[in-house]
């Protein structure tokens, strides 16, 4: 019985169309790249992250492409919803037949589509979603081109502990996968260094008041606060912290916020002067070294309001283009993957830390700088008091 069924299964289901083709998505003058992002829904602000890399494609195309091939981005919406993301990735793989995938914000979506991408075998460079489990355990074709959650979380905790005499750390976070992807590794690093959080608090999305949390923090008397909160809630939290006269306590935030926009939202420097964020770039948002990249984005997307999100995916795009160049004119998926794995200590000129892929480790960026206000100016820092 089982045998018959097996035979039946074989005959019915082996006639798979040749999707896993080595050169699928390539023509003589184009490379089709599937770009997934939450273009709609309540996480739509994340899709800013994919703007940077598409602008970089435009720049490469304008300079003649890669070995005469233009990079063609095919965008798919995920709405930050796993089911929708799955539909999108299947569309890209089986209907649009792209050569590779690049992008994806929202770790939940990335985790849901990982098995599909792994099975289909096409290269996927993750440009924004940070959860470690997307690329660890390693899949042969999945690469992480930005600091992962654990790299960021570690960097946050490292910075917190780099301040002399930090003993008491409080944590406030959303209860969602995004917030945990920062706070869990930060907690782990603190624990390794013998620091247990003195307060573990939750502030949900959409809350417009943080009084209850702040009073608890006041009781816990922390030296440093780790805040794994989205933009709107970060501003509310900092504002309330100031209101209750506690703005002297430094606050460490995630890469989901930046200094410039947080300042714009809370309105005065005094409220944010002790706010620090994960900042994976060599310069601050308005700084000279980031300016050429900002100009590039503006050139192709004149209406784009620049935030640190806008730059998140450029580093990975540089890695992709480097590997495409190295793979030569006879591009295939496997020689592209092989070239990615040869990328060693690549200074992208935008990310604070270099990109290195090896055959066994596809998490390319191992650390991140931090940004904070120094003399009222957003400044990139290596550790407490040390400029980048």
């Amino acid at each position, binding site marked *: 019985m089982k045998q018959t069924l*097996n035979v039946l299964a074989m005959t019915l289901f082996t006639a798979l169309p040749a999707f896993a083709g080595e050169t699928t998505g390539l023509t003589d003058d184009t490379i089709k790249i599937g770009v997934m992002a939450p*273009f709609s829904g309540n996480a*739509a602000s994340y899709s800013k992250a994919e703007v940077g890399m598409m602008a970089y494609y435009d720049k490469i195309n304008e300079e003649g492409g890669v070995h005469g091939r233009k990079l063609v981005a095919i965008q798919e919406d995920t*709405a930050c*919803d*796993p089911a929708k993301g799955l539909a999108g990735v299947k569309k890209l793989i089986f209907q649009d037949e792209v050569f590779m995938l690049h992008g994806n914000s929202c770790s939940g979506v990335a985790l*849901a589509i990982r098995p599909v991408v792994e099975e289909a075998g096409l290269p996927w460079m993750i440009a924004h979603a940070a959860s470690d489990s997307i690329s660890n355990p390693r899949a042969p074709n999945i690469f992480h081109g930005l600091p992962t959650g654990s790299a960021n979380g570690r960097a946050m905790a490292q910075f917190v502990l780099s301040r002399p005499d930090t003993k008491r750390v409080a944590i406030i976070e959303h209860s969602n996968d995004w917030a945990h992807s920062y706070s869990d590794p930060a907690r782990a690093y603190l624990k390794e260094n013998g620091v247990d959080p003195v307060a573990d608090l939750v502030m949900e999305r959409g809350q417009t008041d943080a009084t209850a949390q702040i009073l608890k923090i006041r009781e816990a008397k922390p030296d440093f606060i780790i805040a794994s909160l989205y933009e709107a809630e970060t501003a509310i939290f900092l504002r309330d912290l100031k209101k209750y006269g506690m703005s002297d306590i430094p606050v460490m935030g995630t890469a989901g916020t930046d200094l410039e926009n947080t300042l714009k939202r809370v309105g005065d420097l005094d409220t944010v002067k002790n706010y620090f964020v994960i900042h994976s770039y060599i310069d601050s948002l308005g700084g000279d070294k980031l300016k050429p990249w900002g100009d590039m984005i503006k050139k192709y997307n004149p209406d784009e309001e620049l935030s640190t999100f806008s730059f998140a995916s450029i580093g990975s795009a540089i890695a992709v283009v480097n590997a495409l160049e190295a793979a030569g004119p006879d591009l295939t998926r496997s020689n592209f993957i092989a070239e990615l794995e040869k990328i060693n200590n690549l200074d992208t000129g935008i990310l604070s830390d270099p990109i290195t892929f090896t055959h066994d480790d596809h998490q390319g960026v191992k650390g991140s700088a931090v940004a904070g206000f120094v003399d009222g100016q957003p400044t990139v820092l290596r550790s407490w008091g040390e400029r980048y």
Partner: protein
Amino acid sequence: MMPTSAQLRFRTILFWLVPALMLAVPMVVNPYVLFIINGILIFVLITLGFNFVIGNLGQLAFANTAFFGIGAYSSAIATTSLGLPWIATIPLAGLAGALGGFLASAAALRGIRLYYLAIITLAFGELMRWIYVHAKSITGGTDGLSMPRETLLGFSLTDDRVKFYIFLVLTVVLVKATLNLLRSHIGRSIMAVRENEVATASLGIPTSRIIVIAFMWSGFVVGCAGSLFALHTAYVFPESFGMLQLIVSFAMVIVGGLGSVLGSILGAVVLTALPEYLRSFPGMEELFFGLIVIAVLLLLPQGLASLLRRLSPIFIERYYRE
């Protein structure tokens, strides 16, 4: 105008012909389209169960998202923690959904009706979601649960084609069962309760029991759908069972046709396929969705099923109130 007996026979043939023809679907579409079709089958079940309570029983209960989540999580927990094969968790998920239905009916029986019922069931759904997030040790918290890779009789359960056949069989079975239930003594009582609960009780029909049965059947069907969803996305995640899910399935019921099984199917098909078709206009879904629903409410208050009824009497469902 009621259908003639010849038309009725044709209707029976049509009922079986459609799924029979659908057997060929996996051979002709690509995996992406097949994934969408699988999603439609799941939504057919959700809408079917939801419509049973709001259309046939006439109670404004919004607990279907809760049933759906309960079903999906039951299935995922039973496979990941207890190591059961997925296929064995379908009835489990159905029963868990039915238990949710029982709880919702308890509220209805306590005299909580109309908007009160709507709001308490809404709260029930959101509380369940809170539990998914915070009961980390069983539900995986915000990271969700990943379904293990499995085979069934040698067929890989990650293959959308295999999923399609399982989903199709289950959908046909549950649609047929719902139709039979509606035609039975119980079904007639359910609709009698909708029309006039007091009068129904005065005929000696145990209205409380009827309400409990209707809610539990609704919970069972939607719970099964949850189990299918767990396999469909292979990943169960709290955010999938929020307000959006509720509103989408609510719209499916109304757009398809309140109280009509055919309407449940049409609503699920149209409102899943259309947004997918509109993918190329990202950010516009909410607007389109709102406008479509408004248009249907204004122009086709009986839903899409009423269009078909006008076309031919074979689409008349006798338990539907015109």
